Structures are given as C-alpha cells and as structure tokens.
C-alpha cells in the first residue's frame, strides 16, 4: 500500500504572490497544475465556508446562530434571500433541532449542511451520535470555541474534542483556503456510497473564522462537475418503504456499530481518492496529513488547524539556523491516520503533540493520548511530550513555539523528558 503524504517545502519556492493575481483570467502556476480561471477573493473563514456551500449545490441548510459561526448562517441566509441558491434554509430554534432537521432532510436524499460552535455542538451531542448511527451524510462546519463555564467566545477545541467519539469524520483546516477546499471535498467523501457518514470540518474560531484572507475559488462549473447531485439508495421512498432508526438490541446493535466503524476507517482511502480528483481541478493537494521538513527532522511538532501556520513560520527560521525540526499537521483527526503518521516519524527522536483542549484528568490531551497509544505499538523509543495551549483564545506566539522546538531538541540530545505535559502560555 502506498501512503499519500502531502509535503510542503520549508524553503520558500518561487510561487507568485497573490497580489500578482488581478483577475480570473490570470494564470497561476502551482507545481505542474495550472490554477486557471480561479478567482482570488477576500474571505474570512466563515465566508469561505458559506461560499463553498453556495457552490456545492446544497438542498437543505438547517442551522442556529452562535458566535463565532454566525457569519456562516448570515451569508447563507443572504444567498437564499437573494435567490443565489435554491436551498431550503430552516432557521431552527436550537442546535439540537438543527441537526435533527438535518437528519430528516438527509433521509429524503437531499444534500445537507449545517454549522455550529462550542455550546451549540455540546447541545447537539446526542444528535451527533444519531446522525452517524443513521449513516446520514451531512457536512457541518464547526467553528471551534471554548466551552462554558466560565463563558468565553474565543478559540479552543474543547467543543469538538469533547465529541470526538461521535462517529463523525473530523477534519481540521489551517486557513480560509483550506476551509473552502475541505467543505467542497467533504460532500464528496461524506456522500460516497461506501462511507455515508457525516463530516465535521473544523476551523479555529476568530483566528480563521474572522480573519480576512485571500482565497482561490473555483469556477461554479468546476465545482458542479466535481460534485454532482447526491445519489442514494437509502432514503424515504413510499414505493420502497424503509424503517430508519429502529430498536437494535443485544443481538444486532454490536454488528451495526462494527459496520459503522468499518465505514469510518474506509474514509482515509476515499479521502485520498477525492483529494486526487480535487487536485486536478484546483492545483491544491490534500490528504490525511501534511508534513514539512520531515525528511531529515530530528524533532517535530504535531498539531492541527491554524497553529500549523505559526509552527511552519518558526520552522523556517530554525531551519535557516540549521536546526533539524519538522512539522506534522493533521487534517484528518477521525479516523486517525495511523499508517500515514508512522510513515513520517520513522527517524524522529522527539515528538511534541499540541492540544488546544484539556482532557481533564487524563494522562494527556486527547490528540496526544492517541499518538502516545499508537507509538506504544510501533515506536516505543520515540520521546514524546504534550503541550496544552491556547485555551479560551490565548494566543500561541512564535517565541513559545521556538521554545517548544528547543525543548524537543534538548530531549533528542539527552533522551530525558522532564515534563510530559506542559501548559504553555498560562500564568501560574
């Protein structure tokens, strides 16, 4: 089996800066693929979500507003009100009903989208499990935000991390461009006949959702071709009545859940296939994870979402100083890309796993727990430590990342890990 690993160079290549792109006719070369006819638009993360949904020919949107996801539902409402899209927008009275309505809509055979954040995701908790259990392909943007109490509207990932076992495919995007690209790909993956599972595309609250960035958008016709209308055999059809969601007792429940797990595990493969096709139309390459400097790195940081951008920038600086540091950015958190991860850490001496959420009382943050558990099987000698950071929107700075890299380099040298869990950026 050949594993698909997306590599990003840390030496800046001669890619044209975005300011060179004046209009849609400008051709931008990115590697061997021509990014022809792609317009560059100023979008914050939320707007990128809404625009991708608009182009994805979604039939039903059911959502409830919550900071920092609000812009998504506002834009979508505008698209519907202006007749830009013919989707049905159900502006429900709670997140619980939002996802419940999505289940109903999905079972009619419709393409369905919703978005939420923080408390909204928490309120959806039981519906998350119902959605994956009923095998409803729904795409949801989760704009990651801290959970109460105390109330805080800013970014961390305690919302999605708290629901990580819900059976959804979970993707984390680094910036608005990735958000846009993942939403479109997510519909294809989610609706694939062998998958039929919901997907959560995560974007960091405010850091991505409210930061204006340049986003390359595909022409409508390209998205339409990439994403034909949803087809499914399992839907409400009076000529072939199906009972969805009956009572499964001791004799069948387990088999159903085993099948669900199998479908979820198949996702990596389908995600790679879809990614390849998407590369052809967009020139942008996606997969389970992206690495930078991992060919010869002694130490690496493993992280997700917007943090990767800061890490990469620090990495470039340290590489210029001759330090062998690397970055592993997970796009796909569930199913966990075990084989892909192993393939990139073979020669590593120390690994730092960064969690933007606490798993109270657990040995590590959730992401680090996953990594530690699989290292135990295949690479016991790799030194690992966990960084907890960014709770409630606390910024993680380049100098903090640099310190983390230096700590890792020290561990690589001495082989001694003093603190297995470090709380970075907190006053204590």
């Amino acid at each position, binding site marked *: 089996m050949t594993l698909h690993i997306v590599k990003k160079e840390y030496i800046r290549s001669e890619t044209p800066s975005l300011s060179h792109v004046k209009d849609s006719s400008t051709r931008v070369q990115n590697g061997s693929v021509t990014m022809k006819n792609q317009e560059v638009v100023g979008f914050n993360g939320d707007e990128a979500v809404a625009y991708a949904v608009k182009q994805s020919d979604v039939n039903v949107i*059911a959502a409830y507003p919550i900071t920092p996801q609000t812009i998504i539902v506002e834009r979508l409402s505008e698209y519907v009100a202006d007749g830009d899209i013919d989707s049905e927008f*159900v502006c429900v009275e709670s997140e619980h009903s939002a996802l*419940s309505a999505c289940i109903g809509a999905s079972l009619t055979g419709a393409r369905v989208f919703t978005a939420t954040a923080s408390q909204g995701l928490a309120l959806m908790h039981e519906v998350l499990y119902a959605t994956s259990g009923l095998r409803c392909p729904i795409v949801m943007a989760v704009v990651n935000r801290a959970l109460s109490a105390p109330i805080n509207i800013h970014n961390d990932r305690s919302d999605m991390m708290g629901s990580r076992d819900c059976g959804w495919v979970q993707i984390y995007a680094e910036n608005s461009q990735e958000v846009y690209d993942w939403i479109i790909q997510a519909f294809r993956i989610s609706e694939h006949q062998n998958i039929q599972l919901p997907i959560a595309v995560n974007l960091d609250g405010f850091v991505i959702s409210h930061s204006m960035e340049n986003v390359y958008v595909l022409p409508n016709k390209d998205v339409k071709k990439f994403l034909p209308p949803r087809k499914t055999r399992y839907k409400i059809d009076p000529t072939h009545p199906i009972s969805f969601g009956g009572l499964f007792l001791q004799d069948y429940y387990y088999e159903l859940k085993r099948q669900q797990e199998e479908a979820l595990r198949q996702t990596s493969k389908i995600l790679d296939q879809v990614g390849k096709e998407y590369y052809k139309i967009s020139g942008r390459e996606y997969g389970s994870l992206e690495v930078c400097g991992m060919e010869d790195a002694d130490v690496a940081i493993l992280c997700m979402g917007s943090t990767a951008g800061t890490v990469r920038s620090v990495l470039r600086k340290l590489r210029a100083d001759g330090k062998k540091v690397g970055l592993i950015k997970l796009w796909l958190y569930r199913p966990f890309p075990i084989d892909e991860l192993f393939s990139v850490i073979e020669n590593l001496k120390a690994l730092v796993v960064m969690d933007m959420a606490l798993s109270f009382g657990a040995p590590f943050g959730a992401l680090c727990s996953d990594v530690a558990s699989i290292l135990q099987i295949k690479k016991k000698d790799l030194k690992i430590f966990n960084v907890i950071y960014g709770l409630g929107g606390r910024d993680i700075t380049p100098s903090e990342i640099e310190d983390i890299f230096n700590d890792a380099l020290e561990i690589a040298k001495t082989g001694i890990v003093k603190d297995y869990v470090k709380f970075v950026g907190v006053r204590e």
Partner: protein
Amino acid sequence: MVISLKELTTKELLAPGHRLCAGCGPSIATRMALKAARGPLVVTNATGCVEVSTTIFPYTAWRIPWIHSLFENAAATAAGIEAGFKALGKRKNTKNHIDIIALGGDGGTFDIGIQALSGALERGHDFVYICYDNEAYMNTGIQRSGATPRGASTTTSPAGEIIPGKRGLKKDFIGICVAHQIEYAATASIGFPNDYITKVRKALEVNGPAVIHVLAPCPLGWRADPINTVKLAKLAVQTTVFPIYEVEDGKYKLNIRIKKPIEVEEYLKLQGRFRHIFNPKFRDVLEAIKQDITTNWERILRLCNVNP
C-alpha cells in the same frame, strides 16, 4: 366533514404482530391515524412505546417510510423532512406530495419535545403532529409527565402516606399549540374513532402545521384491565375529563357535547392509579380533581361559545 367507514383505507399500514401490549391505547391511536392517509405518507416517531415496540430489528411493523432518531426531536425531524421534499421537489419539478406525520407520546411532546414542536409550529412547516397521550412515561415504567393529571399515582409521583400522587394540573397542550396561531389543532379520543380519524384527515389537508392531541389509555400504566381501554377512552370524554374540541384558525368548536356528564368516579375507579384517592384521608384530592375537571370543562365551553 366526517369520513365514513367506506372511505377509510383498507390497507393496514401498521402491520399486526408488533410487540405493543394487549389493550394498548397508543397502538389503536396509531393504526387509526394511518387509516386517515390520503396518499403517500412518512411517519417520524419520537422515542417511546410505539417506536420501540414496532421496530425491533430485524422486524418492522411499518409498511410506510418511518424514521426514528431521538426522543425530543420528532417535530424538528419532520421539519427537515419537509425541507428536503421541498428542495428536491424544486429541482425535479414533481408534484408527488408525501404527507408527513410526527408521532410522539405525552412525554416526548408535553415535556422534552415541546421546544422542537414550538419551533416547528412557529416556522409553519407542512406536517401533522400527533401526540398520543397516555398521561405518563409508560415506556420507561410509568413516570409522571406534564400530561399526568392531578392525583394519579406514578412511579415518580407515587401515592405515599403524605403526598397523594401527582400534584398540579395537566398542561393545556392544545392551548400552547393554538398560541402559535396555527390553522388547525384538535383533541380526540380513541373511544370516538370517527371523530379522531376525521380530524387526522383534516389535519393532513391543512397546508401548514396541524396538531392532534389524542387520549390513548395505557392499561399497564393506568393499572386497568386491558379489556377496558376503549371504555376508559370513552368515559374520559363522557365524564368531561377530556373534552373533545377542535380549533380552526383560532376558533374553538366543541365536537362532542356532554349534556349529562357521567360521574367522574365511574372513570377513576376503573384505574388503579387513582385507587388511593378513594381513601377517606385523601377526600380533598378527589374534590380537587373534580374541581379541576369542572373548571376545565367550563373553560372549554366558554372558548367554544357553548352554554352549559
């Protein structure tokens, strides 16, 4: 409008052989509602007796598309189904209408599902919500709900030495629905099938949300003889415990007029859940129940503009 027997569908859309109890009121309520079908139909079911007992995998009693996901979200699921049909209909330009019924017990409706229902009514989705009311959480073993009447003994409002069963009134559920200014809302009883089935059909024909609140006794929870299910459903009406009326565009209309109510004791004494109130020490509870019934009946008569 009254639907005659001849007009009813001869199809049994709820197949026999399901696992609901002998003498189960909700099973009768469900079967009768489906008799009012005017064409293709989908049912979305809240968690409850009807849901669990009709779909024990690998079996299902439903000969129509049926969806269950959770307890409190039947109305929200119905809203999503309606949105899905609408959106896909626009694309295909088809006119194949499929009716949507959301079905929930009193727990899933009066209590945990009231928010989702309120939202769906306010947004105006085209669906019918049927609440089969057996006046407690029967599926989990007879716990009190917002629909349990005063004095009834349940496992969470037991008749104790000091507290004589449930305290407080049953919610005015139809009043809550009517406050959403929907086109049609009605009460019904499985003891009066023509009235009930006609109302379900009327509700289906409304272009928007409509609500039916149907009394469906539970022999197990009411601690009554299964043979008395329909008798109790009739007595509830004849004693004026459960008034039968409908509300069209905000206008109340009494459908079953009770000139000489049967003594309420006739209804209560058939049910073990009220046994304790015949103990002389709880005489005041019996009086309070009687007062509740009179007050409510007079209120309904006033709303329906009928002289006592």
